[in-house]
């Protein structure tokens, strides 16, 4: 793809000469490195509530962010106006992070390689609106049909198409067109005027509308949301205290995201403020654990052809057989620490500078039979669905909240229990993993990760695992 045939070349007449001029201005005060991030984002969303499509929105935002690095310093400015005067003004503003004469020259821009991970037949945001609206209607009907106790359904469909162009003073020119679509369903059920209970499900990725068929059909997602709500009707109070915990496959991989993922982001480690700082080569998990962050899995929500600094994403081994192998870097942390790039520099949008972030974080499959893992537990808790989680990267303490869980008694799943938060410490928690199933599953593509006010889409995954000990925050 040449610049002239790219989206920004075609739509805004952007040329190599323009980019070099902007980068030159950004480096005019002695900065060592500069980059430009052009973004054009078109979004649409359709919301159903009480069986009515009550609202729908579509729109466009665009802008450019200019970043200048000088040692450990970052200067950043952005403009929502792509006129040369405004971009030059932003570049001049960002340039001021350095103070001196221009010293670095921009290298000639060369189009850099990228993956081709988005296998799409029909772009969601170019599909007829009626087809997209039908998804939420079908979800509503299916959730209601699942069980008469379901009395309220909310369904939200959203898609986006993001065009990006990254140009860097070390000569990288990358473009990408990043699609995204997702469908979320919430169902609320009540029995005989009792306490209502809620269930959620959803799915999506860097996909077109054809994704929403089969296991990802609106009906399948809606039935799962309804099923969770119905299960909760009979749930009893969750237990409190330390116990053996079995996590089911897929979404419970949020454990990895919170327990180790954030703590391995290189900005925290460069500054020595993570519980994992200085621990490369040390044992931080049971030898059964190999944890990967991989931005190259086709069509996944957390995947990218190039990261938001123009670097191709990679398959990064974070923990190998329990040993900490590496951190996730962005340009700044890689420059300052000499670490290899991992394709992990991400940002929410042009108004923000990039940071090291996860993509799709998961544990490799082990050898145990998942059913055998449950059978092996005399008394404990089995968790299959989680809401959000959070971590204090400095102490390493993290939490994640189960929304569907069952007691394990004598190797069998018995009563469902109400939602409960699980708490642990990052460098310690995974040492308690004693069995890993052969059933690695990735989540269904609705994850959002927040860091310092910036949200980015991510994925997680895990096989069934047994943790010998974890603190469960129930009430009895």
């Amino acid at each position, binding site marked *: 793809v040449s610049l002239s045939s790219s989206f920004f070349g075609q739509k805004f007449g952007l040329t190599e000469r323009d980019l070099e001029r902007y980068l030159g201005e950004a480096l005019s005060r002695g900065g060592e490195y500069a980059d430009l991030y052009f973004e054009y984002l078109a979004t649409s969303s359709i919301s159903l509530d009480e069986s009515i499509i009550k609202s729908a929105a*579509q729109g466009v935002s665009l802008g450019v962010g200019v970043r200048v690095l000088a040692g450990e310093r970052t200067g950043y400015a952005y403009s929502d106006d792509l006129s040369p005067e405004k971009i030059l003004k932003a570049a001049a503003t960002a340039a001021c992070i350095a103070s001196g004469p221009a010293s670095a020259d921009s290298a000639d821009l060369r189009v850099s390689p990228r993956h081709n991970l988005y296998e799409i037949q029909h772009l969601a945001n170019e599909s007829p609106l009626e087809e997209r609206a039908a998804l939420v209607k079908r979800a509503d009907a299916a959730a209601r049909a699942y069980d008469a106790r379901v009395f309220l359904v909310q369904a939200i469909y959203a898609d986006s198409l993001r065009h990006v162009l990254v140009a860097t003073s070390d000569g990288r020119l990358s473009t990408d067109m990043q699609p995204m679509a997702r469908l979320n369903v919430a169902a609320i059920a009540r029995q005989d005027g009792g306490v209502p209970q809620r269930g959620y499900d959803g799915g999506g990725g860097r996909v077109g509308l054809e994704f929403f068929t089969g296991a990802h059909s609106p009906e399948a997602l809606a039935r799962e949301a309804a099923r969770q709500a119905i299960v909760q009707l009979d749930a009893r109070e969750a237990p409190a205290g330390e116990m053996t915990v079995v996590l089911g496959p897929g979404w419970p991989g949020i454990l990895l995201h919170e327990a180790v993922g954030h703590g391995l982001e290189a900005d925290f480690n460069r500054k020595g403020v993570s519980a994992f700082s200085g621990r490369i080569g040390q044992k931080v998990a049971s030898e059964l654990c190999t944890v990967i962050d991989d931005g190259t899995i086709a069509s996944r929500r957390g995947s990218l052809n190039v990261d938001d600094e123009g670097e191709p994403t990679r398959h990064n081994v974070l923990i190998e057989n329990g040993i900490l192998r590496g951190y996730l870097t962005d340009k700044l942390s890689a420059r300052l620490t000499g670490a290899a790039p991992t394709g992990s520099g991400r940002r929410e949008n042009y108004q923000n500078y990039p940071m090291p972030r996860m993509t799709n974080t998961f544990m490799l499959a082990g050898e145990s039979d998942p059913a055998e893992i449950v059978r092996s537990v005399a008394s404990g808790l089995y968790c299959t669905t989680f809401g959000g989680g959070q971590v204090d990267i400095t102490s390493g303490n993290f*939490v994640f909240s189960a929304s569907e869980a069952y007691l394990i008694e004598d190797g069998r799943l018995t009563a469902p229990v109400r*939602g409960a938060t699980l708490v642990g410490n990052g460098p310690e928690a995974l040492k308690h993993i004693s069995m890993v199933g052969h059933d690695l599953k990735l989540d269904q593509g609705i994850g959002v990760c927040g860091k310092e006010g910036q949200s980015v889409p991510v994925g997680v995954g895990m096989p069934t695992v047994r943790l010998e000990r974890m603190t469960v925050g129930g009430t009895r």
Partner: protein
Amino acid sequence: MSEAILLEAAQAAITLAMSRGASAVEVTCAEGEEFTASVRLGEVETIKEAGSRGAGIRVLVGRRQGSSYTSDLTPAGLETMVSAALEIARITEEDPYAGLPDAAELGKLETDLGLWSQDIASVEASARIDAALRAEAAAKDFDPRIDNSEGAGCDTYTGCRVFANSLGFAGSYRSTTASLSVTPVARAGESMERDSWYSMSRSWAGLDDAAVIGRTAAVRALRRLNPRKISTRKSAVVFEPRAARSLLGHVFEAVSGESIYRKSSFLLDQLGHAVAAPRVTVVDDATMPGRFGTSPFDDEGVPSRRTVVIDKGMLSAYLLNTYTARKLGMKTTGNAARGLAGAPGIGHGNLYLSPGTMTPEEIYRDIGTGLLVTELIGFGVNTVTGDYSRGATGLWIENGEPAYPVSEITIAGNLKDMLANITHIGSDLEFRGSTSSPTLAIGDMMISGKS
């Protein structure tokens, strides 16, 4: 740009949408400039400076509604926005309750609400850097165990918001915000802990002294060192103001009209009933000058007001916008809130719990033994059922005083019981954001820790 230009853009979009067949229109325009400076270990780390603007529209075509937004306020950009909203409105469905407020409900507070301070608009970049450097240095110099830092930041924001609708309402207001925060890292042996402190103000002069912010943050980080994981037990739990205000956030969600009409609130059907201990009064007041939840009108053009949500333990009001009020057969409480695009949701103004008379120290003494929560993490709160389970960090109170730090535990209960079991309310109410609470004590919660 100025308010006048934004108002003109809003009016142009309304006129255009009406001429294209809309039966009612609302337009929001906003612009803002942000300046942020962060420092770490005595050096500048990042400087960010930029401005942006945008417009959003909601059109009603009969009882259907569509919405769009743009960052392009030229006539061509506004035309694209109007077309997009009208186009997407055709896939929405008739909703008998959709619509603008009644004309008689529109209006705005005309008094000076103290949302704008010129001293922020004119503060020098170097002053922001100096403030951040002083805050971090004060933390670092406080104790040798503060040997690292996640940095300090000083941000200022100046903005303007405009709202107009096809019933003739047009209003605008400018606002400013300054904030200063620092996050020191304390270390002792293997133990490493961080905490933070901050100040936020509508004016530059109103920020707390940087040295005080730094020292407060240092004390907070130091007292967390070498935490113990206590055993599972039932206990009294005291919430510091910073932790307590999250409980008000859950109350807000439960009394918001959206949760009520969807019958998905643990406070459903409780209007006029006791839902909290008799000492508890919760107020939402968007009219308090200079506060962070203050505005002259809500995001539908309805005047801001003061609403008592819980009156001496009794649930006295839901927080409503026009839509949820119509669904419930009630009147809007002026709590419409929205971004640029989409139908209005529910927001709050200055939501606070009225202070009691005891100092925090008196509360610790009265409790004798229990957990003082200084930070909560995680999302284990279900406002449909009231089920509550969150990760906690804090101090264990023994003999009426904080004795040692505890962490890696959870506290759990049900919000209904928690509200009913509020045993102590502190006198230490401060308005540090748009949700504020004094110290609270809750009689009996489950703490989950080690066996």
